[in-house]
């Protein structure tokens, strides 16, 4: 078997609280192959974004890496120095964020922010870099890029800003693009365009994607494989099609069943939505055993005491549930 592009192994992220350290993420393992699109899905607070930040080496206090390995292309990077990480970021791994306005520098024209990538990572001259920035803007289909490179972020719409972010992220042809809720702040019709653009550019350049979102539908459409996180752990991971056809964890099933789906009412009439009872637990009060147990319809005694081990599913899938199926 070829080495995966990114291997995250038994990742633990510590959150320093008032004298106590909590595990915001624990036992998270996944692999992403070259050019593969991998989705990490979960609700707010489940640890999906900080998992991505740990891969970028961007965890800051009170968060820190508590254990585990992050291997990029055969090389362990979890203990890499700040200088080494700075060389990797932008060049080998790039990231785009939910809110492009806060991720872009408001005081610098967008062309300059793209060109910076070529200057810093490839030693290009500013003159050459600005030409390539214009080309990069054209690739993300910003209209009249020759004028737009001189615009400041506030002069662009939300969708255009996210295109600029994508241009910056893909400027140096990274091996891995991390997209953290890249379209949540955008309108639905714009969202569809940005997702298509991202998928198309990454496919053309062979860039792998780690897509982070709360929207299971969006992720399943775009990704080859999907992992579902709940309260700091991966509870299920499967091939994208399979996760909808045969969800194995009660939480995944609950998520899929609880969303009103287009066309459902026309086919079956209006039915009461299946609710997931209770609320997402807070990190200070994660329940013992399976963390979903207080909300689970199939809970038994074992779920309240013993953390379920991973069970294999067909096609490299896995599920962590005592009563999966």
């Amino acid at each position, binding site marked *: 078997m070829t080495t995966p592009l990114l291997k995250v192994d038994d990742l633990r992220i510590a959150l320093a609280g008032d004298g106590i350290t909590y595990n915001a993420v624990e036992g998270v393992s996944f692999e992403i192959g070259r050019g593969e699109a991998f989705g990490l899905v979960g*609700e707010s607070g489940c640890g999906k974004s900080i998992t991505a930040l740990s891969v970028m080496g961007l965890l800051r206090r009170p968060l820190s890496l508590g254990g585990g390995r992050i291997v990029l292309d055969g090389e362990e990077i979890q203990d890499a120095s700040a200088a080494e990480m700075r060389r990797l970021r932008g060049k080998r791994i790039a990231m785009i964020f939910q809110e492009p306005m806060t991720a872009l520098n408001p005081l610098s024209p967008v062309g300059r922010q793209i060109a910076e990538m070529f200057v810093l990572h490839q030693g290009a001259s500013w003159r050459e870099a600005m030409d390539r920035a214009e080309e990069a803007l054209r690739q993300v289909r910003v209209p009249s890029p020759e004028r737009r490179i001189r615009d400041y972020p506030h002069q662009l719409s939300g969708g255009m800003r996210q295109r600029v972010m994508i241009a910056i992220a893909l400027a140096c042809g990274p091996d891995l693009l991390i997209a953290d809720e890249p379209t949540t702040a955008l*309108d639905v019709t714009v969202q569809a365009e940005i997702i298509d653009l991202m998928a198309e550019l990454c496919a053309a350049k062979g860039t792998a994607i780690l897509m982070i979102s709360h929207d299971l539908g969006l992720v399943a459409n775009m990704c080859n494989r999907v992992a579902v996180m709940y309260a700091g752990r991966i509870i299920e991971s499967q091939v994208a099609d399979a996760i909808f056809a045969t969800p194995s964890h009660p939480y995944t099933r609950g998520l899929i069943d609880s969303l009103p789906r287009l066309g459902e009412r026309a086919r079956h009439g209006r039915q009461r*939505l299946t609710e997931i009872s209770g609320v997402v637990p807070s990190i200070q009060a994660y329940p013992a055993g399976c963390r979903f147990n207080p909300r689970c319809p199939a809970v038994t005694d074992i779920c309240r005491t013993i953390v379920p081990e991973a069970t294999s599913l067909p096609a490299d899938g896995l599920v962590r549930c005592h009563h999966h199926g």
Partner: protein
Amino acid sequence: MAEQLLSLDDLAVHFKVGSMLAGGIKTLKAVDGVTLDVKPGECLGLVGESGCGKSTLALAIMGLLLPTQGRIHVGGQRISGDTPPDRMEMARTVQMVFQDPYASLNPRQTVRRTLADPLHLHGVGDKAEVEARVIDMMAKVGLRPEHADRYPHEFSGGQRQRIGIARALILKPKLVICDEPVSALDVSIRAQIINLLLELKDEMGLAYIMISHDLGVVEHVSDRVAVMYLGRIVEQGGWQEIFEDPRHPYTRALIAAIPDPFHRAAATVAGAKAKGEIASALNPPPGCHFNPRCPMKADLCTAEVPLLEAVAPGHLAACHFRDRII
């Protein structure tokens, strides 16, 4: 014809923006000629993207913004540019549930105070009756009596939205405007709130205007649906007509934009997707506002504003090619 609870007649709300010094004063037509009805007990889904005027429309119906042109009839009151509504009467007729239950509750008021104050204001003087109605309303939205003395920060997002719903319903309004009521909530909580809203609607005979960009939610709850684009209604009709036989290309683009993992083929309806972004409401394109993004654009679309006309009884679309089936 059934008595309408709400009817909007050619409603427009315009704002003056800019200054004489900086480029002159422009008119922003946030709502531009909207005609719409809501019957008692009916749920109207209102769909559109940011900047299309949904929220301005909601505020006008609440009586918080006066129309620039046209009239609003709601529960026996008539509002127009020169006849402002009676606020107290309006509060007993129309109420609103807001998107963000963190920002829309007073952090310094207990649940009891949040729910009792409107009753005091509206002349329910008897202490025992106020208490009974508060506790009853809390039970209706799934809160326990001991929650009454807690503050908003002690609740989760879903529970806060229950408080927001209770506050909207405590005066027994006839119409409730729900502005993205679940989009700020955790995905696993949304079904609880949608089910609750539907139960309360049946129980209390409420009419809803459900504003949402989540078409799955809109289809699930609505009896009729109106689609807005840059201040105008571009299509309206029964929920089944809108979702199964959409006639405006913008409606089709909205539906095509939803990632549907169950019907992947349908999710990429060829040619249905919109291109580009919404134009500025300050400077909308001439003719049909959607024309720069439309896959069906023709010369006629830049020259003439398409009227909102019937394709079938009760199903209207503002498109020159509303009869062209794709």
